[in-house]
């Protein structure tokens, strides 16, 4: 099987580590060769963060380059646009419609681009925009945004729903399993 590429992007502190842990666990359990790559340290302090998840028969590079991503899962609108050039032809963007202003916007040096997702759609990019934050709150915790997005991503995979749920059980603390399963289901059905 040709290597598949998923990028998870967002703002440092939004919880992308749990999403990549879930994906890594699930795909390894499915018997794929898997590489998951992220950068720790400086970039986690509210900066733009990116995680690469690659799986297939044999995966070499730990990173996903421009024009290679099958999916970009973005926790924030601007970050979806920042990494759009990594998308391959026919790739898909799944994006949380939350807006988090970066510091240059906060201090008025730069503008947050309006209608940035429409701009991508107009260029022929497949964009699934969902209000993951509201759905996560419906599930019981704003922090479950990451799992809502994983639920939405799961629609595109031939992996049984129960397997995703099992991966959630393995990756989150017992007290949070129910909230996260609900969040996953809300993401899956939206």
């Amino acid at each position, binding site marked *: 099987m040709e290597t598949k590429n998923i990028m998870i992007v967002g*703002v*440092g*502190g939004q919880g992308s580590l749990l999403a990549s842990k879930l994906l*890594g*666990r699930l795909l*390894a359990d499915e018997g794929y*060769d*898997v*590489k*998951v*790559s*992220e*950068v*720790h*340290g*400086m*970039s*986690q*302090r*509210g*900066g*733009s963060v990116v995680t690469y998840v690659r799986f297939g028969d044999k*995966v*070499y*590079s*730990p*990173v996903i*380059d*421009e*024009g290679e991503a099958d999916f970009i899962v973005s926790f924030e609108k*601007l*970050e979806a*646009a*920042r990494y*759009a*050039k*990594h*998308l*391959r*032809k026919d790739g898909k963007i799944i994006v949380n419609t939350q807006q*988090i*202003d*970066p*510091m*240059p*916007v*906060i*201090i*008025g040096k*730069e*503008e*947050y*681009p309006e209608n*940035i997702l429409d*701009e*991508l759609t107009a*260029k*022929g*990019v497949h964009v699934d925009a969902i209000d993951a934050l509201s759905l996560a709150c419906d599930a019981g915790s*704003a922090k479950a945004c990451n799992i809502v997005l994983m639920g939405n991503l799961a629609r595109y995979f031939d992996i049984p729903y129960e397997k995703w749920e099992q991966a959630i059980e393995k990756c989150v603390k017992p007290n949070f399993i129910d909230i996260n399963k609900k969040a996953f289901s809300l993401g899956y059905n939206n």
Partner: protein
Amino acid sequence: MKELMIGNAALARGLYEAGCSLISSYPGTPSTEITEEFAKYDDVYCEWAPNEKVAAETAFGASLKGKRSACCMKHVGLNVAADLLFTVSYSGVNAGMIICVADDPGMHSSQNEQDSRHYAIAAKVPMLEPADSQEALDFAKIAYEISERFDTPVFVKMCTRMAHSQSLVEKGERTEVSKEYVKNPTKYIMAPANAIKRHPFVEERTLKLTEYAEVTSLNKIETGSGKYDFGIITSSTSYQYVKEVFGDDVSVLKLGLVNPLPVKLIQDFASTVGKVYVIEELDPIIETHCKNIGIDVCGKEKFSMIGEFSQKIIAQAFGLEPKETVSADSPIPVRPPMMCAGCPHRGMFYVLAKNNITVIGDIGCYTLGTMPPLNAMDMMIDMGAAVSGLHGFLKADDDDTESRTVAVIGDSTFIHSGVTGLMNIAYNQSNATVIILDNSITGMTGHQQNPATGYNIKGDPAGKVDLESLCRSVGIKSVRVVDPYDLAECEKAVKEELAKKEPSVIISRRPCVLLKYVKPKKPLRIDPEKCRGCKRCMKLGCPAISFRDKHAVVDNTLCIGCGVCSELCPFEAFEREGE
């Protein structure tokens, strides 16, 4: 069953399985998790040391006593540990000793892009370089065998991508290893008379290691399908990028032992292929070696000395078609890292910026004080340089510099190498004002304990450095503690200490808001009736405050209720949710 592990965790596992009994380290991205993961094993000893020199010396002590040991650090940490390195190369080891060093090509979290392989060459110490997590585990075991067989410390070199990429790993069992300690002054007392005799041993050892490099399975040739007639010599993640681009279509010499490098193996490989390319990140170490042994290779003329590689960079260099991409036309604002909402450093930096004070800075989260809108830093070079740098800055002229210049340094960095600079200030008397930003944790590397926190690596109570007493005992008479959430108090302290004709220390103390025991208060909100859009609160550069429709607004998912913004508002527009 194979397990997904980051390279650092796999390396820790390998050290554990190989019988490593002690690790002493100072945290530094991207090396930190090696030690953190090792600390999770119960039957071994693991600690955070005050700095890399202490860590390396501690590891050597354990080796001398007969236990396999290791110390872990980032590339620049090796500069601090280098004092031990060059002489432990002479003395050799008793039980095996490994120095894990993690480079940071691309400078994701570092102040330079130095290539640690130079140290291996300069100190004549073997260096192994794994290319994925399984190799990290396996190479740790081989490194100990080399260490004891050749009587040398051994480097295992990581890089950011290796350290923080997860790949599948097959775990094994731990083997206990123990050597007897026998007093041996000619080997372990490196006074001139003994060291003179050890130097020939080192040169002899390098020759033996070169012979080993010719035959070890660490270095391997993968013969390509024949589609391309050229060959590639590579190592580490560069190997992965090469395989990503060419698969099995090109012949590759993958080097796992990068110091010393083989001679005959490279010559033999070169003789079976056409042109030879050397693909290595950062400096042309392998390339230079190849040229020295008479092999005409192409390296840095095609592949940069700067930054990280990727499959795209390799493909482009070989003229392969770039992949189709799409992007938005609107400019995308950058999103640099910044101090968190509620960060205790922010208040102090606001005061320094407001009073237009020259700030000699240091390394840690607080380096983000340099970012707009605060722009409150003038220098940041290395660990501890704020304190000693300020001393020199003040001694360089006799004008009024001392009344408008401070040093800022974190608690962990101060312990690491700031206190020696402070001794110099006290001893040689500059009227310096040093601000210790004490957030009670090593923050930027992801919350490690340090000698000033009172807890050890396992989170158990430990010895605690009393910073106030420490500063007083080295000879600073004026030492005061302020709460950085209290802007008026901070400003008063800074102005008073700067005016004094003696050295002084201000400890700006409040724990990092990300610490679990720090409970956030209810978030603030802004009454739009009262907010007049003066933007005074925006000068803090708090990520929780933005400006919409002529008013400041607070993002209640980010705000932790520190209240510093409300101290700045002349219209009392901030109120706490639920009040």
